């Protein structure tokens, strides 16, 4: 299968500028530093990691809302950097984004109808009645009443606003939607409704999702495959079943261990990560995780581990990944 979207060794280094009168670049935030991943049609790839590890930047690079400072972003076989602006605009219709805070993402002065149809105007469709029908159809599809098309965003609850954001993303008939913390700010009862809605829409329209989140339990629930990021890099990527059956990277293991239990009887003392995430301006040498890694050895601070396949469909960036494989079942005596 050819990938719908491929990131090839993508980098985004933001310059850090100091000084007001004579501004100069004093360093770079290496927000995304050599990320490669591929997203297949109709699949959900989850992207998890701690705050500031570069998840949103990956999402914006994928949509080319940001230009990479290195590497390539390829959509349907086309390198987005090689496109003329008009072509890029056309191709972009295939990719949409849903944000965490729908209120900040929706223009408060526009009606819901204007909001939903905005991506279509960009596309240059002007048939009034057809557009109006399309908006009504989208409202219904996301579980809102078409009668509310003339209202403004503040008249809706958080969950309803997120439905509006989803309707807007669906309008141009995309093949890929980046969901950047799309359910993170919602109350659980509402979050569950939106998660289920996203799953239905995926089945119906064959959508692919890049699902960005920091709650591993939510990401696990929605994803087919999961990529774990740490300080601008992917440290582990695998199918969901594989990742949880054999969690190999020490950081992923710590992330899993930090998730609260589902039932009080499952409480147990667990190893905790110490310290905070280091600065992305001066990432630690070698393995970026080594200052917090309970398994670090001399080699870890000297040599950066490459992301390499350890099992079929399971790649890990750790020198010692094999050590964390569960021991094979013993043959019966």
């Amino acid at each position: 299968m050819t990938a719908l979207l491929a990131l090839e060794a993508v980098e985004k280094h933001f310059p850090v500028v100091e000084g007001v009168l004579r501004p100069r670049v004093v360093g770079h935030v290496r927000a995304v530093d050599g990320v490669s991943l591929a997203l297949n049609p109709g699949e959900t790839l989850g992207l998890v990691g701690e705050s500031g590890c570069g998840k949103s930047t990956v999402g914006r690079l994928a949509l080319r809302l940001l230009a990479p400072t290195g590497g390539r972003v390829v959509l349907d076989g086309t390198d987005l950097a090689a496109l003329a602006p008009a072509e890029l605009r056309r191709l972009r219709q295939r990719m949409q984004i849903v944000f965490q805070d729908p209120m900040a993402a929706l223009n408060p002065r526009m009606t819901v109808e204007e909001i939903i149809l905005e991506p279509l105007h960009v596309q240059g469709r002007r048939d009034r009645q057809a557009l109006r029908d399309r908006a009504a159809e989208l409202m219904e599809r996301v579980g809102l009443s078409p009668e509310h098309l003339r209202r403004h965003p503040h008249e809706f609850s958080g969950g309803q606003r997120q439905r509006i954001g989803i309707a807007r993303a669906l309008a141009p008939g995309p093949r890929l939607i980046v969901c950047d913390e799309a359910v993170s700010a919602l109350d659980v009862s509402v979050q569950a409704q939106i998660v289920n809605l996203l799953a239905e829409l995926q089945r119906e329209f064959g959508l692919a999702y890049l699902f960005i989140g920091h709650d591993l339990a939510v990401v696990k629930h929605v994803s087919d495959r999961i990529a774990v990021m740490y300080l601008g890099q992917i440290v582990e990527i695998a199918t969901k079943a594989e990742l949880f059956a054999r969690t190999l990277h020490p950081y992923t293991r710590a992330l899993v261990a930090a998730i609260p239990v589902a039932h009080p009887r499952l409480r147990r003392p667990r190893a905790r990560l110490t310290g905070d995430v280091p600065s992305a301006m001066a990432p630690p040498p070698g393995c970026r995780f080594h200052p917090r890694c309970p398994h670090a050895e001399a080699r870890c601070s000297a040599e950066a581990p490459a992301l390499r396949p350890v099992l079929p469909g399971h790649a890990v960036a750790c020198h010692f990944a094999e050590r964390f494989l569960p021991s094979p079942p013993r043959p019966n005596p």
Partner: protein
Amino acid sequence: MTAAPLLQVEGLTTLFRTGRGEVAAVEDVSFALAAGEVLGIVGESGSGKSVTALSVMGLLPEPPARIGAGRIRFEGRDLLAMPARERRALRGAAMGMVFQEPMTSLNPVFTVGDQIVETIRTHDRLPLSAARDRAVATLARVGIPSPARRMQDYPHQLSGGMRQRVMIAIALACAPRLLLADEPTTALDVTIQAQLLDLMRDLQTERGMGIVLITHNMGVIAEFADRVLVMYAGRVAEEAPVEALFDAPRHPYTVGLIGATPTLEGTGGALVTIPGTLPRLGDGLPGCGFAPRCLRATAACRAAPPPMVEVAPGHRVACLHWDRPTPGEARAPRVPA
């Protein structure tokens, strides 16, 4: 329990003056907390968790807020009948609070050290050097590296996790017997959340503090609480020991909350949902506030608020049909015994 509870709240009703008249944000809420116990208060946005905690601390601005009814007793003493000066003396010394928004409750123009030292000196008449020593020790205790150096930092120089540790340090500096922690880990990464919950657990064991932990996260409840109060639209929906709550939730809202929370143990498929959305304050339903979203609802539910019934020792439910699960409704997930 024979000894007087550490904290006892009876029939608390807190009202706010709004454009649409006075509305109750918290209504007829009762609970008790023993020393050394963790009571979790869980509920979705706007259910009245923070208002409950702020009412206990006496930190709501009056007006627009007003305690309409009820009694709050701390170590047997009636807080609402107490002179303001005495109440202030308890606050920050015997009763500490960690606030939901660390950035708004830390003062941006003072260093971390100044803020802890001031808290200590407000309550204990210590010489400055002794207060500073205690501040450094408290920062060390909450896991801040190089605490003496960090004393000179301003809040914006700290990461979110560090800031929340400072908030906990300020709340703990005078060794309170009661700690109210309002969503102390909500804005933080799970790895930092786990560190902080461990820290609070250690401090609680060490000092025998009573803790009220407010959260909207059922996982945090499962991880940390001894007893749980589930709130919905300003009222208590259910109260139970934590295992009973997860084994046999009786209120349909609790059942829904547990079912709607994705877990690592979950098997995928559609999540259980609660239909509809949360009511807005002052939507003023005469009967059960959950009725518009409840599959069990009957005419009786809509007539008057359901009374609280005790369905097992320590397990109270405000639902007329607590023993009548309905087809299509969430069911409690099975978990190994």
